[in-house]
């Protein structure tokens, strides 16, 4: 894998993660029982869409095939997406969403902080901007885990189950494949093993505060980084891409 290929593949993955999670969150806009949390979710979702736009615009430039952000987001098929499996899982209930959010963002924040130090200056700039957003996201999610985990018996049991359900999708984040390795080598990219260790410490602290138990590492699902997705991604993509597929080039 060449230096250019590694950078393009890495930036696309970042865009895919941001877009797919953002799309998942957007699906529940207008359904919250409380106005304040409704706005919070919409804000956080839009942060992700904003990040996806930056990553895709940059990826399109790197690729040099005249594909802009819309082409990358709306005209690629499911198998071409390289997002983590965790992010494409159905939303479930509010506790499920907060569990997914905290587990992913505990990783993503460390990834972004490492990217701020990488040798590609444009990616480092995008990472610096995104870091600020995700730091707030994580604060928001961790506080909710505490409220739910340390709340009633019912909320504790339900959010503990949420954490357990998400756990099998966390292993994939830390397995360095050829793209991760090439990016680390050429651009001083994140060391996923170091991130895994820090993630364990940070997540343990959040769960401990929320009186939740950290599940043990058993079988871990993987495949998202290779484009082998769960059945859920297809439905998400179909809904997300419908307009551009039905009315190519539609604009407003």
């Amino acid at each position, binding site marked *: 894998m060449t230096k250019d290929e590694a950078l393009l593949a890495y930036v696309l993955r970042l865009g895919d993660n941001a877009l797919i999670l953002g799309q998942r969150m957007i699906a529940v806009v207008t359904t919250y029982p409380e106005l304040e949390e409704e706005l*919070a979710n919409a804000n956080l979702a839009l942060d992700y869409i904003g990040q996806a736009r930056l990553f895709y615009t940059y990826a399109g430039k790197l690729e040099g095939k005249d594909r802009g952000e819309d082409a990358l987001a709306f005209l690629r098929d499911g198998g071409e997406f390289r997002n983590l499996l965790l992010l494409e899982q159905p939303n479930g209930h509010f506790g499920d969403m907060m569990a997914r959010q905290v587990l992913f963002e505990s990783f993503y924040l460390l990834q972004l902080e490492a990217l701020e130090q990488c040798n590609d200056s444009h990616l480092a700039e995008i990472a610096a901007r995104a870091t600020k957003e995700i730091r707030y996201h994580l604060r928001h999610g961790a506080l909710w885990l505490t409220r739910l985990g340390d709340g009633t018996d019912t909320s504790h049991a339900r959010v503990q189950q949420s954490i357990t359900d998400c756990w099998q999708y966390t292993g994939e984040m830390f397995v360095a494949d050829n793209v991760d390795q090439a990016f680390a080598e050429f651009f001083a990219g994140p060391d996923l093993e170091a991130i895994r260790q820090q993630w364990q410490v940070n997540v343990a602290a959040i769960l401990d505060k929320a009186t939740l138990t950290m599940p043990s590492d058993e079988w871990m699902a993987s495949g998202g980084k290779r484009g082998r997705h769960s059945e859920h991604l297809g439905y998400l993509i179909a809904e997300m891409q419908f307009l551009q597929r039905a009315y190519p080039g539609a604009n407003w």
Partner: protein
Amino acid sequence: MTHKEWPLYEVFIRSKAGLSHRHAGSIHATDDQMALDAARDTYTRRCEGVSLWVVRSSEIVASDPAETAAFFEPAEDKIYRHPTFYEIPDGVENL
């Protein structure tokens, strides 16, 4: 299922350093941290502020509208409390 309203908080925003916090509105939240987050997400989405205060509405002691006359009207005929009898020296633009 009965829907129990979350407690009300009042939100104050400092729009930039040096200015004082101004009342912006109110939000519902179950605790102080949530109130701060909700205020951030509701009232500072368009760069409205650099500092936030939130306070439980129930903690605010307010004057009684029924006592408006006793509270505020006695000041109306005391015009000598206004600094309107001073000559403004030449050259002073802002006072």
